[in-house]
């Protein structure tokens, strides 16, 4: 049975190959081309979703690592921090007083000028801070510093923007911050410890949240504020989520990093 079928197939093949290609009506041809185009569009859209949600993060991660490497190549860390044996934890921050914080001049706020450590966002969370909030910065290097806002440690408001999703999604976990969480900034001058206070969800046109005194542009700043902005909800952009923190302390670079993030700093600098 099987044999006879095979034979028949072999016999019929030479006849069928060339001349008897089925003629299609114009409608069938148009329908086929349209169908193939639609399938192609579907595949391309899926590819785009994969690229946007997955590949941009990997791409941005590589560029952020390079930016960190660049930053740490210009910064000479203290050879070996004093290494206090008692791990303070969140309740007992370092109480050493180093006086008025050293602050970068506005003119020094170019390129990647700092690093952010947020233990709440993960053990290894260390991201470069780069001047500017254009897509060239945010899409490639993670956190961008709003031009004209304060420098780390200065009286006033240092405002940083970062993506909630895609392109590194540096502020994906912004909603998990709990009042009292520490956010550490590092520049070539030292380490600035900020304490997270609250989040606020606003409409995208509320530029007053990055004013020197957030939401009160006319007021004279007295506090040292850190403001993070990202989009909200997580996979949308109808609103912005704003996270405010207040500076608690600072340490000069030679004093070594705050003990709570000594490991992270070493890791961030070591991977350089």
């Amino acid at each position, binding site marked *: 049975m099987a044999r006879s079928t095979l034979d028949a197939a072999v016999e019929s093949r030479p006849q069928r190959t060339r001349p008897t290609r089925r003629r299609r009506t114009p409608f069938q041809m148009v329908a086929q081309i349209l169908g193939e185009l639609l399938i192609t569009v579907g595949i391309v859209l899926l*590819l785009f979703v994969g690229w946007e949600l997955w590949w941009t993060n990997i791409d941005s991660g590589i560029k952020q690592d390079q930016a960190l490497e660049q930053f740490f190549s210009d910064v000479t860390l203290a050879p070996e921090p004093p290494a206090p044996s008692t791990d303070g934890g969140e309740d007992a921050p370092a109480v050493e007083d180093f006086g008025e914080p050293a602050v970068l001049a506005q003119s020094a706020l170019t390129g990647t000028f700092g690093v952010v450590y947020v233990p709440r966002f993960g053990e290894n969370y260390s991201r470069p801070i780069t001047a500017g*909030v254009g897509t060239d910065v945010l*899409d490639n290097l993670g956190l961008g510093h709003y031009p004209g806002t304060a420098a780390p440690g200065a009286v006033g408001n240092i405002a940083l*923007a970062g993506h909630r999703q895609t392109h590194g999604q540096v502020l994906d976990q912004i909603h998990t911050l709990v009042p009292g969480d520490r956010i550490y900034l590092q520049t070539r001058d030292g380490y600035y410890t900020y304490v997270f206070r609250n989040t606020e969800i606003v409409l995208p*046109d509320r530029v007053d949240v*990055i004013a020197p005194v957030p939401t009160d542009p006319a007021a004279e700043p007295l506090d040292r504020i850190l403001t993070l*902005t990202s*989009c909200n909800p997580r996979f949308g952009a109808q609103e912005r989520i704003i996270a405010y923190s207040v500076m608690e302390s600072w340490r000069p670079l030679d004093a070594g990093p705050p003990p709570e993030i000594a490991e992270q700093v070493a890791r961030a600098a070591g991977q350089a």
Partner: protein
Amino acid sequence: MYGSIFRALPGPLWMRIVLSVVLVLAAVAVLLVFVFPWISQFSPLTDSTIGSP
């Protein structure tokens, strides 16, 4: 459409398969390198700044 492209490729079957894979990869590369970054600027996911940057 794709059938006629496949038939228009030169060479024996294995060569046409190789050529069509190369064509598909080239199309994907063009999408990844040029098209998607351009579309991405219209993506609402990437608006994370306050005001108009």
